[in-house]
């Protein structure tokens, strides 16, 4: 009895599967010419190792645009002293700090030179200071 039931079920499945397959084959025959053309073009491009032009806004372009906007805003803030507030550093101050930092090795060298200090106490240095 159970075998008969199982056979009925299998038969039912076969009929159902066949009906679905027929629907599917019908759908394959009715793919629109425009889609077939694009499929063929895509296949030829793929065989040549090329990709077709991207549609819409790719994610990379969106992130690139966001990065450009953030960069522009940052640049604008740096070049507009009025937007920096009291605590913000002026461009001139930044340059001075940068120059002072670049002179640091020279200052250190003078600090360590005893002849420099001897010259400071000489009359030449006093004359130069008066000029």
């Amino acid at each position, binding site marked *: 009895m159970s075998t008969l039931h199982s056979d009925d079920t299998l038969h*039912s*499945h076969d*009929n*159902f*599967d066949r*009906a*679905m*397959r*027929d*629907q*599917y*084959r*019908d*759908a*394959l*025959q*009715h*793919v*629109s*010419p425009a*889609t*077939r053309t*694009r*499929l*063929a073009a*895509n*296949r030829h*491009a*793929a*065989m040549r*190792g090329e*990709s*077709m032009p991207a*549609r*819409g*806004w790719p*994610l990379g372009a*969106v992130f690139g645009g966001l990065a450009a906007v953030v960069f522009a805003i940052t640049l604008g803030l740096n070049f507009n002293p009025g937007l920096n507030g009291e605590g913000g550093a002026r461009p001139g101050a930044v340059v001075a700090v940068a120059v002072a930092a670049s002179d640091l090795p020279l200052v250190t060298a003078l600090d360590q030179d005893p002849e420099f200090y001897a010259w400071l106490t000489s009359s030449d240095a006093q004359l130069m200071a008066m000029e």
Partner: protein
Amino acid sequence: MNVDAGPESVPRFAAPAATLDAFLAGIGTRAFRFAESGLRSRDDALDAVQDAMMKMLAYRERPATEWTPLFWSILRSRIIDTQRRRTFRLRWLPFDGSARNGDDREDPIDWADDGPDPARTHDGREAYGKFAVALQSLPRRQREAFSLRVLEELDVADTARAMGCSEGSVKTHLSRARNALQKQLEDWR
């Protein structure tokens, strides 16, 4: 109902294609329908198929008998990637027009209205539309198992290879898919 079996509609019994180009030419529309049912968008489906075709180039030296499960496996991955990207765009980029409607966006089924009998064409489109809606409502693994095993007529081993799971899992997914579809499509039982 048009049941003419063109070269692209009898995959299981066809001899292996001589070249990769011929293989891709034969599988193109079937791949499109598979991607269309997973992505519900004509353009996304075409992109996924093209990506899969490009990736197949890396396997052109493999025996032609391996191309079929390989291709379906690659296409499955591309469809999943597209679905994930769509979910990401929906979540993080609400201003992106292409993602605004997310999964709710559904293109109408691609269907050529050029038959000699408009009424028959309309009936065919409506019937496949019901079937496609029922198929799309299935969980992804069940949809894949039914599409590959029943519609594409892959054997269980190739279906398992394409889906990246065991043959037992294929049978389980297929059984559940068939039961769910039969409940939704009483007319075809």
